[in-house]
């Protein structure tokens, strides 16, 4: 996700002279066959979501068949039942708390660490630190899994606060990679001018650099948000109190049951997926371009 775009083609923005008229028209013509093909492919994304919606609205005795049939009279009570079965408000609150906490702490700390590293990469200590953080990208999580669980339990961090801390720490490797590349593309002149005006390094960072990091903050924020919101393994092993359960974890309740009530389970799945999906509907353009930016930096 961190390909160096500059090693690929530099964007040729120079006007290429007047192209032949026929070619111009050809380039802007919509290819409807391709559009239809893309539309057909996009169905693969939508079909599972459709299945989830119709199943969530059925009564258990309508379940037979392929599952794609429309429900006969939508049964909204499934959602009410799901709401209480998984204690939805509590799970939502936990997830939101962990996600917001992780995003804020990540943005504030990771960008600062990256700034200190980016501006001192020529010094051995900071260069070493940079490599130390990046190297962790190659360490698969299972190897530290068991020890981290012991550690958080001993430190009393087997709760939401512990999760916030761990997302911030484990995101550091990747985020530093992204931030450092971006910070090094910011000219030093601004900082030097501020320095001669007597501004401290702290002031320079918070007043000048941090605001300039806007686009990267968006990218890092989005990726951290998606990760913390949807993560399953870390909450599964870290949280000891059932009252601290996050949304994905709360769905576990339907698995142990002997006779799964599928409509209620699916209603609950939809409830869990809905918050992020709604945010995404409104911020879609912004989210996708944020992720794209992260990949070309």
């Amino acid at each position: 996700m961190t390909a160096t775009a500059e090693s690929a083609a530099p964007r040729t923005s120079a006007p290429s002279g007047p192209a032949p008229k026929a070619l111009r028209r050809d380039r802007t013509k919509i290819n409807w066959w391709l559009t239809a093909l893309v539309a057909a492919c996009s169905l693969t994304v939508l079909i599972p979501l459709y299945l989830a919606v119709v199943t969530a609205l059925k009564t258990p005795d309508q379940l037979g068949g392929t599952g794609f049939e429309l429900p006969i009279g939508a049964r909204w009570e499934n959602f009410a039942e799901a709401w209480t079965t998984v204690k939805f408000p509590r799970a939502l609150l936990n997830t939101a708390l962990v996600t917001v906490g992780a995003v804020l702490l990540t943005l504030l700390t990771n960008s600062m660490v990256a700034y200190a590293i980016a501006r001192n990469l020529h010094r051995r200590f900071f260069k070493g630190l940079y490599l130390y953080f990046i190297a962790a990208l190659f360490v698969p999580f299972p190897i530290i899994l068991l020890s981290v669980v012991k550690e958080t339990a001993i430190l009393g961090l087997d709760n939401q606060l512990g999760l916030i801390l761990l997302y911030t720490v484990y995101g550091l490797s990747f985020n530093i990679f992204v931030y450092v590349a971006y910070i090094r593309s910011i000219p030093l002149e601004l900082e030097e001018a501020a320095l001669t005006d007597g501004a401290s390094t702290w002031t320079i960072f918070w007043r000048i650099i941090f605001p300039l990091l806007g686009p990267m903050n968006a990218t890092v924020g989005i990726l951290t948000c998606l990760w913390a919101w949807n993560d399953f393994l870390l909450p599964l092993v870290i949280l000891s109190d059932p009252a601290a359960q996050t949304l994905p974890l709360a769905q576990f309740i339907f698995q142990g049951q002997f006779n799964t009530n599928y409509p209620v389970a699916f209603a609950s799945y939809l409830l869990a997926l809905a918050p992020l999906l709604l945010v995404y509907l409104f911020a879609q353009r912004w989210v996708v371009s944020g992720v794209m930016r992260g990949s070309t930096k």
Partner: protein
Amino acid sequence: MSTLTRPNVGRKTPRVFYFMVLPALVIFAVFHTVPLLSGIYFSFTNYAGYGEWSFVGLSNYINLFRDDRILNAYGFTFLFAIVSTVAVNVISLAVAIALNGRIKFKTGFRGIFFIPNILSILIVGYVFNYLFSNSVPAIAQALGINALTTSILADADTAWIGVVILSVWQAAAFNIIIYLAGLQTIGGELYEAASLDGASSWRQFRSITFPLIGAFFTINMVLSLKNFLQVFDQIVSLTAGGPGTSTESISLLIYRGGFEGGEYGYQTANAVIYLIVIIAISFVQLRILQRREASF
């Protein structure tokens, strides 16, 4: 990249830069490096996760290679990861090229294809579970396709395919966006020139598109394989490792053996091997792909 940071005109590093990184360094060491080292340490013991323990030398490591369950987990994980990596990259590149073409509703489609990436894979896995176990057999029955009338998840030989489908479905979303970002760095003029020279679409793909997004291809291959080798959520929601242990991945085995099976020391030895394997593969892959890229 190299000329940007001028050594601060010979001055010493302001101490404040150390204050900025030291807390992060300490916390990172506590929650990442210390667990890593203690994991390696315990891999030489017979620690069960509780109670007494003693050193057992290399015996955990030796036993790993004689343990069918471990070998089976490696076999499944690699088969799954390689098939998924190839599938997801082929599909994502194809979709990205189509999305980059002259189509209507570009942003809308782009938004739809990214949806899987914002959904919890665990929860989507439950929906796919229902799809594979109930919907697909019912449809196959109606169409008279005998091979699919039983759930693919119930058969030890085919269950892994279900895991591949779910994983590719989700991972494609992210990879499409990365490829799209790569494709957008290529100027349209190149294609114009090529079509004036009479190059076919395939020829244009081979001689322009693919070489120019080489860096994106490399990074996607390495990251996909690395992520797929750590597969966990998908399996929990689709097959729980079954039928039998046919879809038990390395991560799932480490989690189960280490937490529920009292094999803390033994499974950390497994994790150490796993770490070495992942690092080795990432490096080999980077070397091969980079060399291939350069030869264009």
